[in-house]
């Protein structure tokens, strides 16, 4: 049982991190915190890719004299590019948050939704029920 635990602990840690990230994304209303949670979800996937490629006793996949066992290079390549793409998309998300803050003066999800639905609650002539918010 202990051997099974040690053998699969990396998967379970990855699942815990992914679910914690997902929890932050769906339970927390603050948009910046949601993005941090999304980042944690994303990094847990890096772990899911890289951990199975490791061989205990092996070395980093840089071929040199005197080494015979190397860890698997393919997940490293995939994750390397994914990290940089991840930060680019994080920056895109932050740019959206900044624009939302400027339009709604809030980055709390509840507050934004309330403001979005406010024109429908108090009917006004002319504008219709578009739910459009004047910044």
């Amino acid at each position, binding site marked *: 049982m202990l051997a099974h635990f040690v053998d699969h602990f990396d998967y379970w840690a990855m699942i815990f991190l992914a679910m914690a990230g997902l929890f932050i994304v769906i339970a927390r209303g603050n948009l910046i915190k949601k993005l941090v949670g999304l980042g944690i979800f994303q990094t847990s996937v890096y772990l899911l890719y890289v951990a199975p490629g490791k061989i205990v006793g092996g070395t980093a996949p840089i071929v040199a004299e005197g080494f015979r066992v190397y860890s*698997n290079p*393919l997940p490293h390549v995939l994750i390397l590019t994914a990290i940089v793409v991840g930060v680019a998309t994080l*920056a895109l998300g932050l740019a959206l948050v900044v624009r939302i803050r400027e339009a709604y003066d809030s980055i709390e999800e509840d507050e934004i939704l309330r403001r979005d639905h406010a024109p429908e609650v108090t009917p006004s002539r002319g504008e219709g029920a578009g739910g459009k918010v004047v910044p």
Partner: protein
Amino acid sequence: METLIVNVLLTLMMLAVVVLARTRNLFAVIVLSGLYSFLMATAMVALDAVDVAMTEAAVGAGISTVLLLGALHLCRSEEAKPAHKPWLPLAVTASAGLLLVYGTWDLPAFSDPEAPIHKHVAPRYLADGPRETGVPNVVTAVLASYRGFDTLGETTVVFTAGAGIIALLRRRRRTTADKEAP
């Protein structure tokens, strides 16, 4: 020993995430996410992924912390108190996590040399990569040569994200002077 180091680092990361989820001060949240990234980079070194570790340390702990702080500078720094206890999200994520743990039952054990991941294309890269490309770092050889199309796509994604951010943030915020003008 190596397994122990990796598992200790993973435990520390889980602790950091639990603290992060419970913290409401956004500045502390961002610093904790930087800490988490550094732990991730260290775990990557322990997992022999030195290229990934270098990228994660520079990107995750460096640039993305700076960007998050920059965005926080433009927003409010305290998260509002949630209106109700998050029991439903907790139940959903916990049950999804349990399902995923059930799914790991048949997966190959950590560092099993007979796992399918080590049997497919990786041995060929390791055996022929340095000879065919003259580059001893197999990660660079695969990244730039064998999987050049892939990297071209990733670079284009980075470019597209950059273009999107420029489109979103280039225009100045409407000031009072602009509003008064017709």
